[in-house]
């Protein structure tokens, strides 16, 4: 079974530039999550999708971050404009849904460095 795919693995940009990360979840997983993991901290949920609808985006900085999940499959997370404090690993995860809530499968992450 293929895992959660993310790209790019690494990205270096200057502040005020934009960046986009892509995620393809495990086939059949209805729920998709984007987490932000700052160095030395645990992952923090940015946004949760159920199929192509947003379930929770309460911690997404909407003035600069946006995310979409077209057709309820893959997803894109965008940051524009980036700030220094956005340097982090962006983790995508997916799950079957409420029947196995919390059993998330994570991708390897996209490491962003903002200079």
């Amino acid at each position, binding site marked *: 079974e293929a895992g*959660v795919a993310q790209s790019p693995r690494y990205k270096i940009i200057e502040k005020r530039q934009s960046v986009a990360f892509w995620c393809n979840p495990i086939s059949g997983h209805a*729920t998709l999550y984007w987490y932000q993991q700052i160095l*030395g*901290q*645990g*992952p*923090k*949920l940015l946004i*949760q999708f159920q199929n192509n609808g947003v*379930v*929770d985006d309460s911690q997404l900085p909407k003035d600069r971050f946006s995310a979409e999940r077209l057709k309820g499959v893959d997803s894109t997370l965008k940051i524009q404009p980036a700030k220094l404090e956005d340097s982090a690993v962006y*983790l995508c*995860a997916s*799950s079957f849904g*409420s029947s196995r*809530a*919390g*059993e*998330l*499968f*994570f*991708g*390897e*992450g996209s490491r962003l460095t903002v200079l």
Partner: protein
Amino acid sequence: AQSVTQPDIHITVSEGASLELRCNYSYGATPYLFWYVQSPGQGLQLLLKYFSGDTLVQGIKGFEAEFKRSQSSFNLRKPSVHWSDAAEYFCAVGAGKLTFGTGTRLTIIP
């Protein structure tokens, strides 16, 4: 609000020795509890989970955890660690929306 505390930032254990990583949680109802492991440059992998029932749960790689409601704890244990267990360990609570602790970095010495 749900929260997780992992009081140990870094633990060093000799290979072959036993291990216990601490986790305390705050949750309004019966918690769903998880331990994830993250190797360098990798995503998180689920070690084990507690939803209900038996309070001692077994996971992959020889790990186990015990849910103690009275202590709001879900400590991770392994009787004998291997060098390959060196990684970052995260405790998490929630249903769907997971809240993670800050992690415990495990170092194994020969």
